[in-house]
Structure formats: C-alpha cells, structure tokens
C-alpha cells in the first residue's frame, strides 16, 4: 500500500497499562508559549493553556477533518481539570516537534498496533527504549487516523494533562493560603479552600501553577465522578461551520498570491514528455507554465484562469509501460494469483487447511473494487519559498508535523527552514494521511520553482478523482468445511494483497481449524488507507461468507452467528442488541429483506441490521439501518452517534455505487456523476444503540464502515435471493427476471 508499517510497541511490556504521560520539562513551557500562546495566556502543562481571564484552551495535536474530535478531547481534559465548560476552547496544535503527539505513540504502543507514517526516519524502525514522547517527536507524529484520537490521545494525553494541571492549580492555591493541599477541592474552574470557603479562579492561579512540575501520574477520576465525559455536549467547531467563517486549507489567501492548476500524467507513473506552452502564453493572467517530472502546472492570477489555461494545453505524457492495464487485466491478475497456488501462508489454527477434508466443502470468491476518497474539499496546498531560503506551507492534512517533514524532504531543506500551518480539512477519510501527499509535493515543487511567489495549487475534482491513492481492489477466496449440522469445522481464507497479510481477515467466530494466506498482486495503481482500511474489505468478505454458510445450513443468520460467538460475550450482546432493536424475525412485506453483519475494528464492535426493499425492476431502496456499538463508553455519545450515521451513508455510497475502474492504465471516472454518492432522498432511517461496558474506550470514526456493505448485501439476498459477491451493488441486475427461482 505504499506505506511503511512500523511497530513501535516492541519495547513496551505487554499489559503495562499505566496511564501516564511524560510532560514537557518546565523549560519547554516558554517555547510553547512563544509558539502558541496569546497575550494573557500561558501553557500550564502540555496541551493546556489557561488565560488570566480563566479561559482554558485545549491544544489538540490532531486535525479537524470532520469527525468532531476537538470536542471529546476537550471534554476529557476539562473533566479532569474540573473546568467550567463554558470557558473551554480548543485549537489546533502547531506543527512543531514540541507538540508531537506522545500519547498517540503511547496508545499505539500499548495496543501493539501497527502505525504507518511516510515521515518515519528509517533508523527508528524496530524496538527502541526511547521515551514515547521523544519517539513521537522523532517520528513526526501528529497523525489523525486509526480512529485513535479519543482512545489514545484522549485517554493517555488529555485526561492525564487535565488531572495534572488541576493538581498544579491546587498547589498554587495552597501556597498562597499556606495551607495543606488536602484542604482544597476544585469545581467549575475554581480552587476552593474548604475550611475557609475562600476560592481562587483558575485564571488567577495559572501563572503560579505553571511553575510546578506536572505529575506524570496524577490521580484520575473514577467513572462515577465524570461531569463532562459521557455527556452529549455540543460540538465546539459547529458554529463556524454554519456561517461560512471557518477557513479551510483552500481558503488560504496571501498577498500577491498566484493560483496553480495542474494536469498530472493520466497513467500512474507516466512522465511528462513535452508540452507546447504557446497556446496559453498570451492568455489573460497567466504567469508561468511550470513543467514537473510527471505533471504540468499553470500559474495565473486567478484560479479559473489557471484552470482554463491548463485545460488549453495538450501535454504529452508517456505511459510508463502501463498502457494496456485495465480493470479486466487487473481482475485476471487477481484470479491468477489466487489460483496458481502461490499462496503465502499467514497463520493457521488447529489443523488449518488440513481440516477441509472433514466436512462438505463450500467455496466462494468475493471482490471489492478500487475506491476514491473523494473528500468534498479537493486536495490543495499553498506554499511560499521565500528569498531567505525558508519555506512556508498551508494545507489541510491528517498530520501537521509529518507534513512539515515531508515538505522539507520534498524541497531538500532542513526541517528548521520549513513552517507548516495545519488548517481544517473538508473531509479526509485517509486521503490526507502520510504517504498520500501528492498535493503537498506538487505545491512545494511549484513554489520552489518560483522563489518569492506564494502559490496556491488546487486539484480540480477531475485531477483528484484520477490521482488519489485508492482503496485497494481485493479478491478473497473462502473455503469452508461444513459439518452435517451445518456448522463450519474449517475456515480457509486466501486473499490478494499489495502489501502484507491483514490481521483484519482473522475471524472472531469460533471455528476450530482456520488458515489464512495471501497472494501478492502488483498493479501500478497507487493505493492507500481508506476509512477503516483493511476492515473495509475483510468485513464485507467475512460477513458475506458467514451469511452464505448460515443460509446454506438453512439456519437463521443471527442464530448461526450467535452459535459461533458463545465465547465472545461482548460481540454476542452487541449483535443481539442490534437484532432486538431492529425487530429481527418479525414479518416484512414482500420485496423487503433484513440483513445482519458484525465487525470489530479500531477497538469497537459494530453490528447492523439493514432493511431494504427491492422492487420488481431491481431498484434498491435502503429503508433502515439499526446499529449497536460496543465502544466501552462513548466520551460524547452524540458525536459517536454522528460517526455511525456518517459511516452508514459513507458505506452505502461505496457499497451501492462506488468503483474506480481502470482503462489504458488510467482512471476512467472523472467527477461526481461518474462516482455517485447517496443523496438525501436515499438516506435511510438510522438508529444507534450502545452496548456499554468497562472495556477500554474504542474508536468512533471508522468502525461503523465495514459492516455496512455486508448488512446491505445480506438484506438484498433476503429480499431477492440474489447473492452479491462483487461490489458495487449497482453492477448486479436485481430485477425479478434476474433472480433465482423462488426458494421455499
């Protein structure tokens, strides 16, 4: 997937879930103040500023790309801090190593999860004993991805920081009163001396408090003491998103700025051979045609002039030898890779594939297509290479610090010469993660060619649709041996990959013998993480195949799954909650069907019951999605609910319509009509229910996506008898005439 995987957990003792955080040494506060404190405010510890007037600002080492994480992260800090919520603000951390996200590194380490970053220096690969905060600095980690903000940054960083700052404020009050700290309590941004009733506002104490060293292991609240965590508090970012005032990356305006429009080689990997600049030389506003290795950029005084000019050029690109690649050749390559026997074994349990002989063989092959991220804000970046040799870049990405390192690397400049301003993103879904930064690279290269000129490079929708890093096309083959009672005794799954094996393929169902293997397929189409990543395809495959086994056994798909989840109480409870709320088993009118699916990823289990209607002409109407989520506790239940709703719509667009196809080595789709989305009139009713428990806090942004497609196609099967094994649904005829004979 063109991204190096990196395991940072090697040095961490398994199970040592000590929540603590290595705060900045106090000498660093001054530098933090210089970087990110306004007049009248100061950092008291990492991530938390308190102003003289009592305003508390939580500085967030993540981007705002829509999932709303600034609010729950602030809730977590403010709750431990006993802050007055009406005085709490949130802002984006500067892209400076001082604000590297140590808690994120800590979280990934504790959870033993692979993280990827384009900007990780090679010398850090492998186990290291370096403290995680320092490690995060070296790694340039400010990533927003992996549904990690709340469960890692929040749990390991924000709560600890809030609690530590509260203790510092108490110490400051105790020093003023010359009284023991045990005589103080805190409430709504005040430190109260219980015996005397005298109290101090946090703003009054902040400067004194900042003189103390924060405890790395402050006392955290028990769940029963939470005042803000677990409450559906309104998002802090929404007011600026209804009046047009929020400035996204694309809204960057600099004096004397030039606009860039780009045409990239249509075939991935193709190089620019030649371009005749004459057709645009005389056009109004055109400043310069910049020829890059694999693209041509026109700079003009206005974007529409740049775009019209680049459209008027007829650059010649080579095809890097990929001119014959098409969706069909890719499909053939996938099937050949699976069928030629060169399967690389991943893992197995029990007797593995040997056990296939112990029952009736069921074999099925599934496929998912390439998908584009298509964030509403087309990727863009503004860059200025100044005459003093420094570079300044403005953009919305999913990693500010990593972007800075990437820009420095691209420009061939030392990191100290580069400033990166992280701005809000109009959607991310993985498109703005490290490794997917062609928009930064082109903007920086263009700016480097034009010293002293600020350049805003914007991908048109067409360029973005054709130069994304796509959710991979994946083919998966299952073989199961089924016992006479219909239950599987062996489960063998081989799938294609352009990277290594995916742990997300491994099932949580209790099947005694399992084996997994991969078949590598090399295609020139660039791929990258797409909201829920590997789970987005394995969720569809596994939950489709298990449904087929259930129907094959003439068992109810819910009961069948439940029988295989007897040693997974959380999964079982989540599945049953969704089923119960959806009225599973109650009669439906003709033409309607229900499908169920359950997937666990990013620390959260999500189960759906989809209800669809398919009319005689084969038109699918998704009526209802009933969900149950097990995420420990939701820090902001309304925010979590919004992420599930979001996942259903996002997942439905992909499952019903989404596909990027390849012809002559290039992407066929150009813009939204060719890459269709679910619209208001197609949006189903969505219900969200929680299965709460004391399990660790789980992710919110991604876990809702994977079970959408299988719930949908399982429901379509229930309604029509047509089993969809290849997405998207739109490619499959569902009219009555196309259906199998009616079943009993």
């Amino acid at each position, binding site marked *: 997937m063109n991204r190096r995987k990196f395991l940072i957990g090697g040095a961490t003792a398994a199970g040592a879930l000590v929540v603590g955080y290595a705060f900045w040494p106090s000498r660093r506060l001054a530098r933090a103040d210089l970087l990110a404190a306004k007049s009248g405010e100061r950092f008291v510890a990492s991530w938390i500023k308190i102003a003289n007037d009592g305003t508390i600002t939580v500085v967030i080492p993540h981007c705002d790309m829509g999932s709303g994480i600034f609010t729950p992260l602030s809730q977590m800090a403010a709750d431990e801090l006993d802050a007055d919520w009406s005085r709490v603000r949130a802002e984006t951390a500067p892209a400076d190593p001082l604000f590297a996200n140590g808690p994120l590194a800590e979280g990934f380490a504790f959870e033993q999860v692979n993280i990827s970053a384009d900007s990780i220096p090679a010398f850090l690969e492998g186990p290291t004993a370096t403290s995680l905060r320092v490690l995060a600095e070296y790694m340039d980690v400010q990533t927003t991805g992996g549904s990690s903000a709340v469960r890692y940054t929040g749990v390991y960083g924000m709560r600890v920081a809030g609690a530590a700052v509260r203790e510092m404020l108490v110490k400051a009050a105790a020093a003023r009163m010359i009284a023991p700290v045990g005589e103080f309590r805190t409430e709504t941004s005040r430190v109260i001396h219980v015996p005397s009733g005298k109290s101090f506002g946090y703003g009054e104490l902040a400067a004194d408090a900042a003189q103390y060293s924060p405890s790395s292991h402050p006392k955290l609240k028990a769940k029963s003491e939470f005042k803000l965590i677990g409450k559906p508090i309104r998002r802090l970012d929404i007011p600026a998103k209804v009046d047009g005032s929020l400035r996204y990356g694309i809204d960057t305006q600099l004096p004397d700025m030039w606009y860039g429009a780009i045409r990239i080689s249509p075939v991935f990997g193709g190089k620019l051979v030649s371009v005749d600049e004459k057709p645009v030389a005389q056009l109004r506003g055109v400043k310069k045609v910049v020829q890059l290795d694999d693209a041509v950029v026109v700079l003009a005084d206005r974007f529409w002039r740049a775009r019209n000019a680049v459209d008027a050029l007829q650059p010649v690109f080579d095809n890097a030898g990929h001119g014959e690649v098409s969706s069909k050749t890719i499909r053939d390559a996938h099937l050949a890779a699976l069928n030629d026997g060169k399967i690389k074994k991943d893992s197995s349990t029990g007797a593995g594939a040997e056990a296939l002989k112990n029952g009736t063989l069921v074999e099925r092959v599934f496929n998912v297509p390439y998908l584009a991220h298509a964030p509403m804000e087309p990727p863009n970046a503004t860059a200025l290479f100044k005459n003093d040799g420094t570079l300044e870049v403005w953009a919305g990405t999913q990693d500010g610090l990593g972007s800075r390192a990437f820009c420095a690397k691209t420009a061939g400049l030392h990191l100290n010469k580069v400033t990166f301003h992280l701005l809000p993103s109009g959607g991310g879904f993985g498109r703005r993660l490290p490794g997917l930064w062609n928009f930064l690279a082109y903007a920086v290269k263009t700016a480097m060619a034009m010293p002293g000129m600020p350049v805003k490079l914007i991908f048109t929708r067409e360029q973005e649709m054709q130069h994304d890093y796509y959710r991979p096309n994946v083919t998966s083959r299952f073989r199961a041996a089924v016992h006479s009672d219909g239950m599987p005794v062996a489960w063998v799954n081989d799938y294609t990959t352009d990277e290594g094996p995916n742990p997300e393929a491994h099932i949580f169902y209790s099947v005694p013998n399992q084996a997994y293997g991969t078949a590598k397929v090399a295609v020139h189409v660039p791929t990258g993480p797409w909201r829920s990543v590997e789970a987005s395809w394995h969720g569809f495959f596994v939950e489709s195949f298990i449904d087929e086994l259930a129907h094959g056994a003439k068992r109810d798909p819910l009961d069948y799954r439940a029988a295989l989840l007897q040693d997974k109480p959380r999964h079982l409870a989540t599945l049953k909650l969704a089923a119960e709320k959806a009225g599973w088993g109650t009669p439906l009118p003709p033409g309607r069907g229900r499908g169920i699916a359950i997937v666990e990823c990013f620390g959260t289990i999500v189960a759906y019951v989809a209800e669809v209607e398919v009319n005689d002409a084969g038109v699918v109407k998704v009526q209802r999605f009933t969900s149950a989520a097990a995420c420990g506790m939701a820090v902001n239940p309304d925010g979590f609910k919004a992420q599930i709703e979001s996942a259903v*719509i*996002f997942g439905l667009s992909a499952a019903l319509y989404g596909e990027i196809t390849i012809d002559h080595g290039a992407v066929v789709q150009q813009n*939204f009509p060719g890459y269709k989305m679910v619209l208001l009139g197609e949006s189903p009713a969505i219900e969200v229910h929680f299965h709460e428990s004391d399990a660790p806090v789980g992710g919110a942004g991604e876990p809702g996506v994977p079970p959408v497609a299988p719930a949908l196609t399982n429901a379509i099967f229930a309604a029509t008898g047509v089993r969809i094994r290849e997405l998207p649904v739109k490619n499959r005829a569902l009219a009555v005439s196309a259906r199998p004979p009616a079943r009993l």
Partner: protein
Amino acid sequence: MGIRLTVNGVVHDLDVEPDAPLLWVIRDELNLTGTKFGCGIAACGACTVHVNGKAMRSCVVPVGSAANAEITTIEGLGAGGLNAVQQAWIDHQVPQCGYCQSGMIMAVSAFLATNPSPTDGQLAAAITNICRCGTLPRISAAVSELAARKGAGGPR
C-alpha cells in the same frame, strides 16, 4: 469589460471576463470564501448561492449572467443574526467537516422559502447536494423541524 455585481447588498465593479465562473469571482475577487469549490460542474452543490433568491450552483454560472442580480452568499445569509436554517443546523448538530454545509444551507433556505412545509419527496427532489461525511440524516431532521414549525405557524 467591467461587470457590476451585487453580493450581500454590496455593489462591486469588477474587471473580470463575463464567462468567469461566479464561484471563483466570489471567492477570489471578493474574498468571500464561505462559498466552496467541490466539483466545478454543478454536480455537488458546495458552491450554492442565491441569485435573486433562487439557489444556483455558482461554479457554472458565468458572472456576466449574474450582473444585474441580487446575489446572497452564506456570509450574507446570516449577516443580521443566524438564519433559521443555520440555527437548526446548530440545534441538530448537523455539520461534520462542514465543507458542503454552506451550499446545503443555501440550497435548503432557498427551497424552504418557496415551500415551507415540503413532503419528503419534494425535499429529496430539491436537495441533491453531496455530503461525503454523511450528515444527511441530521439534515432531514433539521428540515423536518423547520417545516413543522412553519406548518404550525411558529416563529421563523
């Protein structure tokens, strides 16, 4: 080739080509960046503004054709305090990334002005803007509440 454009009640005399897209004139000439670029071909609605009260996708409107019109952008809609649609968007916590919401709010506000109590079918036919974050269920809820208030003769 001067063009006189009235945006949010302010008259601008601009030296731009008549075929320049209204979207880019609003964004780059007038520095009103609340109106967003999404697709450039009127397929997504992120650039929706009001032209004489009617919702139009400004990325395909030549500025010359809007020369004598009253144009309202998201910045103008709430200039005198939040519009009812904007307030409903806050009450229902609609936006996620927010990028499409200027266009959504402009499309919905123009639509409700002509049809204050639409049926679901009318709403679905009229509002075809794309939202990648999937805020559609909350948009439906917000519009339903606005429509119900209108239907009940409630305050705007």
